[in-house]
C-alpha cells in the first residue's frame, strides 16, 4: 500500500477572502420578487365577484381620460369618492397594494412638482398630484383584480391587432420563464465563486448574453410548437361576452362620471 501523500496530511488553513457580491444578491432578490409576483397573478382572479375585463379596461380608459382633461376640483372629488367606494368593496390586502403603489407615485409627483409650489403655482401642483394619484389607483385596481389572460382577452375584444396580443401574452409568460433561468445562473455564479472573484462583473455580462441566446432558442421552439398545433397567428376570444348586473353597475358608474364631467365643466 502506498503511503498517503504529504500534502494530504497537512492541515489546510484556507481562509477565503471576504468577497463583495452585494450586487449579485440584489439581482437575485429583485428577480425573486418579480417572479413571485408573476406566479401569484397567474390564473387567479382576486377581489369580490368577477367583472368582465373588457368593461373594466374600457372604463379605466374613459376615467383616466376624464381625470386628465378636467379642470374642476369638484370632478376630482367625485372621482375620488368613486375610487373610495370601489376600494371599500375589495379585500384588505388588495386595498393595501393599490394604495401603496398609488401613494408612492403621488409622493414622487409632489417631489417633482415642488419647484412650481415655490413659484406660486401651488394649486396646479395639487391638482396634478391628485390626478396622478387617481389614475394610478384606478389602473392598479383593475390590474390587481384581473388576471393577465383575461386582460389580453379584453384587448382582443377591443380590436387590438393580433400581433400586439401575441407580444403581450408571450412577453408575460417569458418574463417568468427567463427570470427563473437567470435566477439559476445567478445562483451558479454565487456558488462557484470561492474567495474573492474579481471576474464576476464580466460573468454578469455572460449571464445576459446567455439569457438572450436562450430566449431566442426558446422563442423559436415555442413558435414551432404553436405552428405544429395549428396556430396561424390569429387569436380568437374564447366564449361569448356575457354581461352581468355587476358589469352594468360599472358601466352606469362610468356613464355617471361622463355626465358629471360635463356638468362640472359648465360651472
Amino acid at each position: 500500500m502506498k503511503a498517503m501523500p504529504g500534502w494530504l496530511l497537512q492541515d489546510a488553513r484556507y481562509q477565503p477572502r471576504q468577497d463583495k457580491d452585494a450586487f449579485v444578491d440584489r439581482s437575485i432578490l429583485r428577480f425573486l420578487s418579480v417572479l413571485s409576483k408573476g406566479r401569484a397573478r397567474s390564473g387567479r382572479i382576486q377581489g369580490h365577484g368577477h367583472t368582465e375585463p373588457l368593461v373594466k379596461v374600457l372604463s379605466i380608459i374613459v376615467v383616466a381620460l376624464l381625470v386628465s382633461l378636467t379642470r374642476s376640483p369638484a370632478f376630482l372629488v367625485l372621482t375620488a369618492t368613486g375610487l373610495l367606494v370601489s376600494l371599500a368593496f375589495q379585500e384588505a390586502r388588495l386595498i393595501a397594494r393599490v394604495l401603496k403603489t398609488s401613494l408612492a407615485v403621488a409622493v414622487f409627483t409632489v417631489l417633482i412638482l415642488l419647484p412650481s409650489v415655490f413659484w406660486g403655482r401651488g394649486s396646479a401642483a395639487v391638482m396634478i398630484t391628485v390626478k396622478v394619484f387617481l389614475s394610478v389607483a384606478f389602473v392598479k385596481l383593475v390590474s390587481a383584480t384581473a388576471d393577465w389572460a383575461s386582460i389580453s382577452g379584453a384587448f382582443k375584444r377591443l380590436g387590438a391587432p393580433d400581433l400586439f396580443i401575441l407580444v403581450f401574452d408571450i412577453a408575460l409568460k417569458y418574463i417568468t420563464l427567463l427570470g427563473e433561468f437567470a435566477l439559476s445562473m445567478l445562483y451558479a455564479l454565487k456558488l462557484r465563486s470561492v474567495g474573492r472573484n474579481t471576474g464576476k462583473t464580466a460573468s454578469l455580462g455572460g449571464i445576459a448574453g446567455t439569457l438572450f441566446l436562450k430566449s431566442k432558442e426558446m422563442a423559436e421552439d415555442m413558435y414551432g410548437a404553436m405552428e405544429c398545433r395549428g396556430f396561424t397567428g390569429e387569436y380568437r376570444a374564447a366564449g361569448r361576452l356575457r354581461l352581468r348586473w355587476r358589469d352594468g353597475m360599472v358601466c352606469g358608474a362610468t356613464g355617471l362620471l361622463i355626465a358629471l364631467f360635463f356638468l362640472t365643466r359648465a360651472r
Partner: protein
Amino acid sequence: MHIPDNYLSPATCAVMGAAMVPVWAISARKAQAEISRAKVPLLGIGAAFSFLIMMFNVPLPGGTTGHAVGGTLIAALLGPWAACIAVSVALLIQALLFGDGGILAFGANAFNMAFVIPFLGYFIYRFIKGRTSSPRGELIGLGVGSYLAINMAALCAAIEFGIQPAIARDAAGLPLYCPYPLAVSIPAMLIPHLVVAGFIEVFFTVGVFAFIKRVSPGSVYEGARTRIQAIYGLIVAFVCLSPLGLLASGTAWGEWGAEEIKNVATGGKALGYVPTGMTNGFSLKALLADYTVPGMPEWTGYIVSAVAGAALLVIVFKLFGLLRRSEVETS
C-alpha cells in the same frame, strides 16, 4: 356636539387630549383581544354607521340643530372598547376631511362622544339587560342607556364650554374663547338634548339594533347567521336619506363660525363681539368643509360626503384588520 377649534382654550384641549391617550391605548389593546378576526371589518361598518347617523341633523328648540351619535349602538354590537375606537376614527375623519369639529378640540370631542357615550351607554345597557330576562328588556336597556349617555355627553360638552370664560380672558376682561358661562351653556346644551336629540339617539339605537338582530343575528351573537349584505343595504339607505339632515337649517349650539357668533342672541341680547381667541386662532381649511363640494349643489355635496366618509371608514378598518393579521403571523 362637535366642538370647533378656538372655542376651547389650548389648555383645555391639551388636558382632554391627554386624558384620551390612555383610553385609546387601552381600547386598542382590548378591542384586539375581544374582537374575533371575522368581526374586524364590522368595526369599519360601525364607524360608518356612526358617521352617517351624525349627518342627520334635527332642528332643536332654540333655533339650533343637533344629531344622534350612535355610540351606544356600536358598543352594544361590538363592545365599548371597539366602539371607542370606531367613533374616534369617525370623528377624526369628520374633523380632517369635513371640518366638523376642531383639530385641537379633537381630544375633547372624542372624550364626549367616543368615551362617555359608548362606556356609559354600554354599562347601563348591560345593567338593565342583566336584570330582565325578556328580549324586550334588552331593547329597553339599550334605549335608556343611549338616552342617558348622549345627555351625559352633552353635559360634558356644556361644562367644557362653560368653564372657558372663567379660565381665559383678555386684557379687557372679555372671554378669549367660548363666551358663555356654565349658567348659559348647560341649559343651552342640555335642554334640547333632553327634549329632542336624546330621543333621536334612542330611535336610531333601538331601531338599528333591532333590525340587525333580526336580519343578521351573527353580528350580535357569536356563531349565529351573519348577513353582511343587509347591513350594507342599511348603510346605502342611510346615505340616500342623508340630505334630510339639511332640512334643519340652524347651526348647532356652540358650532358657530367666527362671524356668526357676534349675532347669536342669548336671553334676547346679541353677543355683540367676537372673542379675540376666535378671530386669530388656529383654523384648518378642510377639503370638503361643512360637507359641501365646491361648485356643486348643497344636497349633492352632502350625499358625496356621506358616501366618501362611509367608504373611507370601511377602508381604514379593513386596513387595521390587515395590520392585526400580520401581527398574528409574526408572533
